[in-house]
């Protein structure tokens, strides 16, 4: 059974929840246009949204001239006028500018009461979106935001690393501690590289409980619905790496703390993933996606395929397999007996060659946004591959990708792999649009996954080139080759193939980071909805 909200927060939320659940869920009609574009508006400062504060830096040239809300209203109107149909926004729940709870302090008077001002701002935000004609949002929360309260604990011995004292830092909404992972003191999940990390990492004494991670999603979804806005996606985690940090599986199933945070230790657990699904789905129909993203590193040498992994995938998708394994309550981590570096039987010492954004529907598994290019051992920057190498690698990767999903997905016909949307004019370069090549060379059907099945899950969603802040706007960042930087979405495969099903383009980088002039936020090149 799904893990419903219980106890403490329930006492405060239940009256609202029952009311909420009495409303009929609805589904936003699919757009008639075959393409949609979502803009990432970055972090929203809810704490000042309804105040007269006029120093919001997100207003760019209007900085210190208009209140925060006016800034957003102007932005929304501008984006809507240019055909933007949805926005992604970042938020957190315990930061000074995003204070969903009064203080996020456990067992402190009023500490975890919900901040009414935050809710009011949330309602106004959604109302403004709807008034501007933008009806879809992607919610991207952070549970260990840099602005969240931090609780450093002096170095001590933990069972994960019994011989090494470790100084951990805890966050109120993260079920594990983080340690200084490099000389610069960047905080990484603790421990790294220990398979037993999921079990041996200490519980977070300051953790509010998994329920407190997902309750805000209920209010977000409810208030969005009330305003006529649909939460089409919640990006629950970003690039989880269960291979190196098995403790991150606690973001799916916390094995240390009861959902209400009152009990810790053996026997207490909270299905955070399920709770998140339950928090969003009632208000946004089954089309709402709870997104988990993973990096898919450890690629193989294109000339030495394929490599084996414990999970049965061909190696380059081991991180994806681990995520899927965690979701399926399977084994995570790399067991004893691995034969070579990176847990693979061959190759794979250079990482970050692919980014896989993995999307889950209730029963349909959809994948998008495979950033793929060939890279050889020691080839830092992956610049030595020939077009043939790249193409061969693409064949391997896509085949492996499909096979990996087939291992774990309930129905292979629901798997929708879609490739990156960049650089169709630069086949010999660093980046490569492999799906385009699959189509061009008629290779896809030969992979025993007919095109009609590829599209069976409905919409195709793509993060247009996550690594480049300016690809959607067609701006150069000064380092990328011209064919990459100037083609923008208009030349992306996703855009060009859009018809049935429709395509949603979700550029990752924020609007403000990409546009030449922040006010009035003019898309460049202009977005042109593709006609059939």
């Amino acid at each position, binding site marked *: *059974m799904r893990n419903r909200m219980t106890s403490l927060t329930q006492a405060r939320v239940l009256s609202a929840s029952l009311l909420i659940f009495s409303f009929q869920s609805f589904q936003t009609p699919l757009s008639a246009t075959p393409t949609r574009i979502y803009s990432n508006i970055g972090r929203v400062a809810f704490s000042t949204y309804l105040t007269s504060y006029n120093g919001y830096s997100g207003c760019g040239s209007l900085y210190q001239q208009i209140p925060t809300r006016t800034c957003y209203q102007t932005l929304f109107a501008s984006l809507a006028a240019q055909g933007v149909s949805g926005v992604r926004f*970042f938020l957190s729940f315990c930061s000074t500018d995003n204070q969903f709870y009064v203080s996020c302090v456990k067992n402190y008077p009023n500490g975890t009461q919900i901040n009414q001002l935050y809710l009011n701002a949330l309602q106004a935000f959604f109302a403004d979106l709807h008034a501007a004609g933008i009806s879809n949002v992607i919610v*991207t929360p*952070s549970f*260990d*935001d840099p602005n969240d309260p931090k609780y450093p604990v002096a170095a001590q011995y933990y*069972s994960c*690393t*019994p*011989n*090494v004292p470790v100084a951990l830092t805890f966050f109120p909404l993260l079920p594990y501690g983080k340690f200084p*992972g*490099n000389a610069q003191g960047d905080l*990484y999940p603790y*421990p*790294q*590289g*220990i*398979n*037993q990390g999921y*079990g*041996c990492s200490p519980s977070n004494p300051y953790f509010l409980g998994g329920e407190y991670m997902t309750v805000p999603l209920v209010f977000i979804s409810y208030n969005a619905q009330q305003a006529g806005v649909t939460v089409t996606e919640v990006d629950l985690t*970003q*690039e989880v*790496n269960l291979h*190196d*940090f*098995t403790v*991150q599986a606690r973001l799916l199933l916390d*094995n240390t703390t009861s959902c209400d945070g009152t009990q810790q230790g*053996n026997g207490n657990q909270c299905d955070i993933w399920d709770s998140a699904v339950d928090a969003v789905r009632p208000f946004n129909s089954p089309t709402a996606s709870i997104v988990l993203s993973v*990096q898919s*590193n450890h690629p193989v040498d294109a000339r030495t395929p394929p490599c084996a992994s414990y*999970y*049965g995938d061909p190696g380059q998708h081991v*991180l994806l397999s681990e995520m899927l394994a965690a*979701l*399926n*309550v*399977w*084994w995570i*981590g790399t067991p*004893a*007996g*691995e*034969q*070579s*570096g990176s*847990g693979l039987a061959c190759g794979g*010492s250079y*990482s*970050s060659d692919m980014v896989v954004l993995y999307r889950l529907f*209730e*029963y349909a598994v959809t994948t998008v946004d495979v950033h793929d290019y060939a890279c050889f051992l020691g080839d*830092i920057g992956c610049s030595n591959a020939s077009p043939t190498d790249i193409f061969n690698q693409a064949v391997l990767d896509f085949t492996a990708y499909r*096979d990996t999903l087939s*291992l774990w997905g309930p129905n292979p016909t629901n798997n929708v792999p879609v490739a990156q949307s960049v650089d169709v004019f630069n086949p010999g370069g660093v980046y490569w649009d492999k799906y385009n090549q699959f189509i061009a060379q008629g290779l896809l059907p030969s992979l025993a996954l007919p095109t009609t099945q590829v599209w069976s899950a409905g919409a195709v969603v793509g993060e247009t080139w*996550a*690594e480049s802040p300016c690809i959607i706007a067609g701006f150069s960042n000064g380092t990328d080759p011209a064919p990459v930087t100037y083609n923008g979405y208009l030349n992306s495969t996703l855009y060009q193939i859009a018809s049935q099903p429709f395509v949603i383009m979700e550029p*990752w980088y924020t609007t403000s980071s990409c546009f030449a002039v922040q006010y009035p936020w003019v898309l460049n090149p202009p977005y042109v909805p593709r006609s059939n």
Partner: protein
Amino acid sequence: MQRLVFILAIYISSFCAEAGTASISGSVLSMTNSPLARVSVLLRRIPKLLPATRPGGTPHEMAPGEESHSEVLTTDNSGVFSAAGLAAGEYYICATPKQPGLLDGCQWDPVRVFSLLDGQALSGLQIPLRSARTLTITVADPNHVIPNQSRGGILVTVASSETFGVHAAVSTAQSPSSQMFSIPIPLDKRCIIRIVTRGATVVDANGKAIQSINDVALPSIPALGNSLASAQPIGKVFLSEVTPGPSDISAAFSLIPLP
């Protein structure tokens, strides 16, 4: 319980893994301090990673000059293992016996990590292995309900109830034959058995489906309950419990199609 005796180097972070001039040696022992031959010893270097590339993301990329390294050593007739040409850095080590009656240290024992300095010769590592009893679980699939997937259709894990649950043994099996899982488990710990299936329901020896906490009544494995891991037909998780004791233990399950 006999404690691991480690000679440890001073913990030093290392961002350079090129040299490979360090070495280690040690032995794997039984609880009676007898050397254990032909035991696999996993040695794995933990590389330093670069910070996450996205705000809120997780590190995944190795730092420049870093390398991931793991190897499986084997003890000789004197129970001794050794490795040379190792880079400086932090290492994880554990031992997996081939002999019956011993517990897999990589699954059940506390984590062991140590650091190596460049050029250091670390000797005297001792890894004890504990005695085990055998849990035998038979899972029959008379109706061939498990799809013949490459990933297998049944996963059986056993986790210690006194830990947070990852110390487990793993077996997989495929349809159609009856599968027997022999898993060494601790003598002194309460364990939880977890059976994950795909496209099937687990029934006990009497043909009764294990559906809820009150449904299971196996003589030797009292029921602890079950939970639905994910909606049909992805799979189901079934839990049962083993109490501490010296004797080997066995249980049988069957699979039936989902309704």
